């Protein structure tokens, strides 16, 4: 199912000498104004923004007909975050401009689409290291009220799997730990070595000051799936000082997993998160299904969302105290909010941050298809729990689900838990939760 995202900008974003005016559309207002001030490292910010825009217009799996969704920018209490998600649902890019990178005022909090057009890309690529740049995110109030020129309007399809993938990437990265940190010389050598069209799954293991690429996983290794997809990081290398790599724990014999590759300068961080294989979008990974959306979780999520306040990172303990909920339930509620695109996850700070994707809410809130199927199975009374094993009747077929979530269906036989539970296991979990409650 695909809805459409409609953009309306008061003219194209433009870079006049010394003045970068980014146009905004949607979010807390029709054309919100989030920031006005100077960038302390404009060269790096320009390259970083270009990288985010490049990911937004690329499909790494099917290189034809790129999805044209614009990047979004979030103004938190003290920083700007530019995010984008590739058309193939497999690469998530984020540029964080940290407080040290901004010399100006955050005028409002929220998330909005930002226009990065071809002439702007052209201009950004010519920004020198030291050219001072004044950045304005959003038009000023005067322009909004007196504007009568032609607006820039665009309508692009917004597939629900794209939305789910964007949200799922946040939940998946929440399980990542830092795995390696490289100097920029080693990072450059590593990235230059990767072939641009590489779609194979490699494993990077810290070795000396760099990473050694192997074909099999060992504990401590980071998965590098489809190394060609890291191409967008390369131009940022000239400004970066460190490459950090994040990933979930793996063991010998693990299947491919997602990983985050982050280049940082003292004032900015540019990160790319890759899906476990180039042809796999984040939308089907099923990571969110683990902390299952029962009614209780939905209620908690409503409570928690009211307490969020655009902090750079969300303090789970403080939230738990404020909401009067145990920490585990707060985390489940945050996952639920992540699924709905209402929080993001910052691996560098190891914490969720508040942001609301500026897309129509009903499309984002629409259930994961697997969860929807599980709900209908549970509601139809198809689940019989008999001690350890449970039987699910789906149509004329009988499926047996064991305690560890394994099932006799062919979907489970194919993925063996690598993409979360199957609909039968989910249905059993739903019914068990009701029995216990």
């Amino acid at each position, binding site marked *: 199912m695909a809805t459409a995202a409609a953009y309306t900008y008061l003219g194209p974003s433009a870079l006049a000498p010394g003045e970068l005016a980014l146009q905004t559309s949607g979010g807390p207002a029709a054309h919100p104004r989030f920031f006005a001030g100077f960038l302390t490292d404009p060269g790096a910010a320009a390259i970083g923004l270009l990288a985010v825009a490049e990911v937004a217009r690329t499909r790494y799996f099917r290189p034809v*007909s790129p999805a044209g969704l614009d990047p979004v920018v979030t103004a938190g209490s003290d920083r700007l975050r530019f995010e984008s998600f590739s058309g193939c649902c497999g690469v998530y890019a984020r540029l964080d401009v940290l407080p040290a990178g901004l010399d100006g005022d955050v005028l409002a909090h929220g998330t909005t689409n930002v226009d990065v057009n071809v002439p702007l890309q052209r201009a950004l690529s010519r920004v020198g290291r030291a050219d001072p740049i004044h950045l304005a995110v959003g038009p000023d109030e005067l322009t909004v009220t007196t504007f009568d020129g032609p607006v820039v309007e665009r309508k692009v399809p917004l597939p629900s799997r794209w939305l789910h993938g964007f949200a799922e990437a946040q939940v998946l990265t929440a399980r990542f730990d830092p795995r390696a940190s490289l100097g920029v010389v080693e990072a450059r050598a590593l990235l230059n070595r990767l072939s641009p069209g590489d779609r194979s799954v490699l494993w990077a293991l810290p070795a000396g000051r760099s990473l050694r690429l192997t074909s099999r996983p060992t504990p401590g290794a980071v998965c590098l799936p489809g190394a060609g997809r890291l191409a967008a990081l390369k131009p940022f*290398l000239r400004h970066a000082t460190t490459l950090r790599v994040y990933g979930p724990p793996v063991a010998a014999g693990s299947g491919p997993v997602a990983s985050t590759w982050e280049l940082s300068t003292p004032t900015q961080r540019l990160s790319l998160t890759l899906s476990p294989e180039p042809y796999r979008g984040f939308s089907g990974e099923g990571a969110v299904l683990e902390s299952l959306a029962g009614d209780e979780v939905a209620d908690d999520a409503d409570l928690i969302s009211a307490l969020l306040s655009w902090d750079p990172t969300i303090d789970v303990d403080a939230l738990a105290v404020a909401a009067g909920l145990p920490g585990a339930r707060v985390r489940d509620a945050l996952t639920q909010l992540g699924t709905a695109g209402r929080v993001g996850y910052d691996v560098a700070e190891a914490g969720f941050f508040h942001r609301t994707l500026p897309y129509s809410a009903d499309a984002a809130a629409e259930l994961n298809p697997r969860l929807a199927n599980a709900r209908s199975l549970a509601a139809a009374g198809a689940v019989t729990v008999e001690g350890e094993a449970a039987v699910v009747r789906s149509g004329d077929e009988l499926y047996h689900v064991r305690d560890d979530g394994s099932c006799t269906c062919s979907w489970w036989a194919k993925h063996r838990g690598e993409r979360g539970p199957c609909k039968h296991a989910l249905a059993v979990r739903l019914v068990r939760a009701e029995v216990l409650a």
Partner: protein
Amino acid sequence: MSLEWEVLERRAHSGDTTGVTSRLLKATEEERLAFAAEVEARIKALRPEDWWRPAADPAGGYALAVLGTMPTAPRAARLLLRRDMRDKWDRIPIPRALEIVRARRLPWLDDLAARLAVKLTADDAWGGGWKLVATLLAETGGTPPVTEAVVRCWFDEMLRGPWESPPVTPLDKFRASPFLDLLFPSLFEIDTLGAELSRATMDATTRIWLEEPVFPVATAQLVADGRLDRKQILAATVDRLVRGGRPAELRPFVLLHEALTPTTDETAAHALDYARLLPDSPSTVAALAQRALRTLDDAGLLDPATLLEISHPTLLRKEKTLVKTQLSWLDRAAHDSTDFIETIAVAFGHPALDIQERALNVVGKHLKRLIPAPAEAIAPSGASTPAEASASAEARGRVGAEVLERLGGPAAGLGGDLAARAAELFGTNEPVPEPVVVELPGPPPVAAMPSPIASAAELATEVAALLREETAVRWERILAGLVSLSAAGEAPAVAATVGPVLDRQAEHFAEDHWEPRPRMSFLAAAIRRLIDPTFGDQAERGRWRRLVATVRAAWQVGEPVLGGPPDRLLSLRVAELYTQILRSPVPELLATPTLANGSLDAAVLAARIRRAETAGREPWPLDLEQALLRLPRDSDPAVAAGLTSPAGRKLAEWLAAGGLADPTVTRVEQTAGTRLEFHIGPPPPTARLVVNLTPPASRCCASRARSST
């Protein structure tokens, strides 16, 4: 004369589009407009067979009727964009359509063209859609929307052919096209055109295929003619290169850049762009940028700071040609500042030894040049050359100790004897090469077998997984699990859980003579027999007899009957399980390995046989044979001590004989070419020597064959 649908339809059905046209033209405009509603209703009511049953495809005729009767553009567009009509725009005879629209003098023709144009896809370049739209646009003087599909179609039209007579070259088509100014800039802006721009074409007169892409040559010519603005085209080309992409996508723009041959002034205007291209672009683009920047530098138009800034990453690129060029450029450009020397030293970090050496030579040369060596300087002992030594002595005095210190840092990582040479040159301490012990992870230990299957539900999960992927470990676990569950009296649970899997995937468990998977069908038959001992239809009885005979033959003759390479023993074992699981049940299999690589610990096997002895059970013969074959050859024979049953004695014999014997080795000479009977001349020479390995006859089988006779 009024219009009648039946008449039009008959003509459309016979492919007589001229007839349709003449009927439409003979009617008056009022009659045509009055007929519109009927055309609309009739076309909407068409059933699928109405499209394929007539002798000719009626789409062309119907489309003419639409063009000939509709009162407004939206209504005409709606009909032409119906799925059944949309796919067949190439059936519309363009001259007939023109006759009709010209006769009607439609004021909304441009509107119709615009409505059809936005619905074009890239396929319409070949499908005929573009031809229709382009004709309508030409008729009205309208312009198409600038979408990727339109650009692709238009570009394809320019390059197609040349089949016209007289032939028209692509260049002339570009010159004549009314859309040149509108659509041409998009060729630079739409990144996804990709390989399209690299298309070549045929020479118009000689009909010989030209290797050269058309786009760069034609563009350069249009610029030379003054038809396109040189400044804009050059800027767009450089922009496209800066935006980047795969080398194949950028190649036409590299060729175009070469064909344009920018002057020094033009190059200077894009100096920053070239500076951006050199470090990060694909190698051909980087080489182009390097040439351009060097031209600028030669003309004195390049800021030395820019040169230093781009050199840093460029010297670490993996293309050695680029790095060498950059080094010789820096070598020539180096002025009296030490910045250049320090920048050249960046190449010490390049992985290639020849680059490192060249960089060191250049650095040495400039250190020497900065301070001309006094003639009386005496080389200290140990210096590689007197020149280097004297340079280092003087340089230490004047270039500044901290610079040499900074050069010494990266130089410590140089390979070969370069580090020692560098240490002398910079007067730093020669790095003591530490014995580098690279700790490679050892081969991972062989994993133990996963824990045995404990429940019928787990067995069902594994059987379902077996269809997805057959692995040896999974097979062993399933066979062992089936035997142990059967012995534990869990047959009803197996029926409840595995039964549905077998039913659901019945086609995968059936015998298939086209793609024989005997193991699967044997396994399914074994499970069915376990679930229901009375199970047996006609096919089942045939299979039963066949498998019993197969297994018995394997037991007695010692030579497996089911042909096929190494996995035949597994198939035989599944057949054995099928025939024996109810007739001679055992509580456990002997052959289940202890390690995931299939190896079986001799002590574990001895314990299993001992348990069978205590219970007074005779193990299944093929199971025992497989178990013996799985023993490591260096197993201790002592583990079999005290075993008295035939199986136990066989184990003891097997271990005492040292396990499976070596294979028989035969030397074979392969000749170069075939030697036929009527071969004349010297025998063909030996091409290579190969060795054939024949596995030894299994001793347990041989002994069984003896004992059974």
